[in-house]
């Protein structure tokens, strides 16, 4: 009777529309292509775990005031270095601040750094790389030499130098990291631009009288975008680790505002007797950079046309 109903659930119409073998319009066909990628992405468990972790981070960032059990910067010297308990879920630090609430608010700092670095780095790398690759010649030579100079330093060292020069603080850390994170993106965008500059459709647009700037912005950069997106996502793990490193060395967020790297640094001197002060923020950093790594790997597999 009712058994038959549960075994054959009806497919919603939008799914049928997305999965039909005979698309009626270009729009439907391209949406179908996107849908196939979504399905492929969904079939990768590790990528989904990464996505879930990042959604959790977003949730924590948005609802931090509701999730935190204490004021993250309120000191209570009577409650110094308490072990994890029902009242203090992850214990308290050397000033009696609740470690759990500080981690919750520290998520805001981490996400802010990641998002702002991506917002600066992706367009910067895209413009430099696409311009160099499309125009070629002397412009390419100059831009790539500059890129090489930035690549000639290990990332953290250069970020340290810039952060020191700009002075401590989250905003300066963001600028310092962005200054060191654009070269690989530019390299990648250039390589993509090189392969499509000879394409027939580019020649066609050029013959129609489009300017170089228009071709770069409207026709070269969009093609580079998927691989740049993947690369930025993959590099986000590195960005978060660099940010944590800067925070650890005292060049990130300034006290009393919570930042995970700085929390590890402060907890260091109490670590042997009160390990939770150090363990918890470090695990938070590891979880978020792991999430970006997993998501980036899955995105790469999904968007790489050689596989998909």
């Amino acid at each position, binding site marked *: 009777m009712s058994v038959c109903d549960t075994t054959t659930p009806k497919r919603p119409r939008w799914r049928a529309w997305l999965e039909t073998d005979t698309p009626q319009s270009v729009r439907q066909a391209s949406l179908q292509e996107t849908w196939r990628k979504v399905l492929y992405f969904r079939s990768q468990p590790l990528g989904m775990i990464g996505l879930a972790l990042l959604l959790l981070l977003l949730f924590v960032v948005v609802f931090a005031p509701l999730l935190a059990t204490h004021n993250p910067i309120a000191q209570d010297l009577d409650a110094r270095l308490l072990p994890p308990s029902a009242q203090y879920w992850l214990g308290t630090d050397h000033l009696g601040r609740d470690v759990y609430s500080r981690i919750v608010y520290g998520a805001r700092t981490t996400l802010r750094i990641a998002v702002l670095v991506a917002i600066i780095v992706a367009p910067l790398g895209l413009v430099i790389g696409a311009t160099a690759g499309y125009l070629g010649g002397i412009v390419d030579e100059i831009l790539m*030499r*500059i890129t*090489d*100079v*930035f690549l*000639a*330093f*290990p*990332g*953290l*060292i*250069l970020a*340290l*130098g*810039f952060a*020191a*020069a*700009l*002075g401590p603080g989250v905003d300066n850390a963001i600028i310092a990291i962005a200054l060191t994170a654009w070269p690989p993106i530019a390299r990648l965008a250039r390589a993509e631009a090189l392969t499509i500059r000879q394409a027939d459709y580019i020649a066609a647009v050029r013959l129609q009288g489009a300017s170089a700037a228009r071709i770069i912005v409207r026709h070269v950069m969009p093609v580079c975008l998927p691989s740049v997106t993947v690369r930025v996502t993959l590099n986000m*793990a*590195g960005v978060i*680790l660099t940010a*944590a*490193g800067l925070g*650890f*060395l*005292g*060049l990130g967020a300034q006290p009393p505002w919570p930042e995970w*790297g700085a929390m*590890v640094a402060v907890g*260091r001197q109490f*670590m*042997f007797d009160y*390990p939770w002060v*150090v*363990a918890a923020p*470090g695990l938070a*950093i*590891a979880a978020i*950079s*792991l999430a970006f*790594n*997993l998501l980036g790997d899955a995105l790469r597999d999904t968007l790489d046309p050689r596989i998909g």
Partner: protein
Amino acid sequence: MAPITRMAAFGRGAIPTSAGLRVGLGRVVSVLFTLLGLLALTFFIGRLLPADPVLAVTGPEVTKATYDRVYLELGLDRSVWQQFLGYIGGVLQGDLGRSTTTGQPVMQDLMRAFPATLELSLAAAIVGSAVGIPLGIAAAVNRGSWIDHIARIIGLAGYSIPIFWMGLMGLFLFYAKLHWVGPSGRVDIFYEGMVPPVTGMMMVDAAIAGDWTVFRSAFAHLILPASVLGYYSTAYISRMTRSFMLEQMTQEYVIAARAKGLSRSAVIWRHAFKNIRVQLLTVVALVFGGLLDGTVLIETVFGWPGVGQYLTRGLQFNDINVVMSTVLMIGVLFLTINVVSDWLYRRLDPRTR
């Protein structure tokens, strides 16, 4: 620089062809340009640093007259370009200025700190290769098996866990709880200065002096920071080894060798591995470059008196010359490592000729 010029002259056999010379020259020019860029960047960072270079020399209590004299002596009245040229001139002569915190010439400080960093990096690279290469090969040959998964997890963890945190957790577990290793520093405090410095590398010096107590103490202090650093190279080396090996295993010569009746291990070690040796060598060379990043944090965590700790101390005290010079030195080292590994690859791999 030496490798480049040699490559230009001898890269394609004894007699350089004009094309070979042109390629070599082009490479020299591009490296020189990058070096100039490094100098410009560090100069720029030095100018931006929020410290008064005059007060850094004189100290905060200073009369107007002395201040002006030092101001002129440091050439701060000259244009930025003249100052930049002066900076380059100084660097070329090995003059990196004085550290305001140690009072010593920065060059001398760096020379003293470098062997400690080298010792740590060498040990880490050894750990990384000794674990990473076999792991990568095992993962490639048994693709999809448990060992492949372990290699993947090690890699993922290496790209996700902050190195300074792993160092601290290592200290907590292996020093504070298990007492397997020594605490921070290079040797136990009462062995400090007991062996004459020859190479500056504590274990080597102890071995030269034949003092095995100091040697053991130095080893107990080195093993943990080297393993933590080495873990991160393991992640990279095993991943690269795995992909090189996978590429070889699908080649026809491997199938042919198997069809001829050669054993699996003979094919893996005598044929496939032989073909990836050169690639691996360049990977290990590049690992040293990657170690420079981690060493700054690890030296800070372990109180290791190397270049990295020198840099972070300089940062704390806004010591302009120290920050500029250390960043420059690490940049030059990194560039040298890249050039040398590139050169090694071209020299050793006949397929690139």
